[in-house]
């Protein structure tokens, strides 16, 4: 091979780049996120139900919250009627976080795992939990 020094160096860089995810995860066990619904309000509920079915909420909660924000902030409409016909007050802090008062164990569990930084808390006030343990990373 001609110019083998340069070519082999380039190939080593290529292989390291491609296998970088494998190398950096070598021998690490991956912990799966387990969002918790163990909060006082949820535990008191007879039927543990969110405003929409669990599968819908898991996939579409960001879209739902975005629509709620648009509805409240831009149209002043605070009433959400879900697919079952029940009405809810559109409010992140008073409706969502009333039940899911455990932001760290519920929201952050998956958000941190997926490396998403929703910008909810740049306007809303974060729920106070375990005041001695402040979140280390500042949410975007």
């Amino acid at each position: 091979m001609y110019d083998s020094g340069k070519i082999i160096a380039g190939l080593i860089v290529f292989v390291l780049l491609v296998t970088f995810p494998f190398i950096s995860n070598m021998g690490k066990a991956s912990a799966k996120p387990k969002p918790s619904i163990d909060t006082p309000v949820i535990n008191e509920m007879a039927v543990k139900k969110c405003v929409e079915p669990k599968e819908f909420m898991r996939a579409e909660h960001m879209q739902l919250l975005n629509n709620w924000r648009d509805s409240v902030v831009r149209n002043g409409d605070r009433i959400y009627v879900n697919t079952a016909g029940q009405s809810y007050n559109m409010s992140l802090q008073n409706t969502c976080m009333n039940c899911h008062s455990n932001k760290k164990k519920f929201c952050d569990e998956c958000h941190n795992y997926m490396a998403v930084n929703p910008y909810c808390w740049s306007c809303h006030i974060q729920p106070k939990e375990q005041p001695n343990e402040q979140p280390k990373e500042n949410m975007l």
Partner: protein
Amino acid sequence: MRVLFPFFTVIVLVLLAFAGVKMANLHFLFGVIIPYAAITVFIAGFIYRVVGWGRSPVPFRIPTTCGQMESFPWIKQNKLENPSTTLGVIGRMLLEVLFFRSLFRNIKTEFREGPKFSYGSDKWLWMAGLAFHWSFLIILIRHLRFFFLKVPYLIHVTESLDSFLQIGAPLFYITDALILGAVTFLVLRRFLIPQVKYISLAADYFPLFLILTIAATGVLMRYFSKVHIVGVKELAMGLVSFSPAVPEGIGVLFYIHLFLVCVLFAYFPFSKLMHMGGVFLSPTRNLANNNRAVRHINPWNYPVHVHTYEEYEDDFREKMKKAGLPVEKE
């Protein structure tokens, strides 16, 4: 045929993944075995191709030059377009790899007003090419968040810059629109420009259709028909830590996306996509133009036995003296 064959190939690939996951329940095959096989083929094939190029001798410097070469000190050299040093070559290669310098020179030729031949600037291909390649790179970097438990800072920065318009939720990525637009342009260009259509082969259309479908399924998954994203990361983390496990209920759209990406990776070393490695090994770009300043010896020159005059004289000195011929050594 040159369009339809790759078009239907992509459709068959999509249906294959759909049927395999939805009907035959081959989650492990499509989620674990095929990705591992594809990445293996990609790395091995890539090295094989590059080594193959490396074995081809380059007996002479053949850079295509587009500027004044190194000459007298009072003639200004164009150091990037006609480099004579390694540093100049590195600069030239950076311009080429990062900004497609040679494509920037692209011109169009047209007949105007009868038999008048005219040349004009044509930057659209350069712009679409740049938009496509950079979007693809950024999308690739963004996807790395699925492969790290603690996502590196660089990936966070890339992602927040890409989504900084803060449109909708999940946030809209600028590169998603860019790549779809750019690939569409690159396909339409092959359809609509007669000269380009004439030279386009199935091997040109197939990667375009494949990448367009990959981007489309990705956009569908993110904005429209969402999959179980935490499950996707669990699968990805299982793959990179060599403890593969297939979580339940990810959604068939993800498997189609993944399968097409695997096809792209496995197809890569055997196709024109190898220009990714090839651009670094182009002798018309990566050589300094120093043909006259440095002696380059043809690598396949075999040793030629030469009989010098000194040796000739040694052989015949006595006879030459007798014949009265002058000799250099007594």
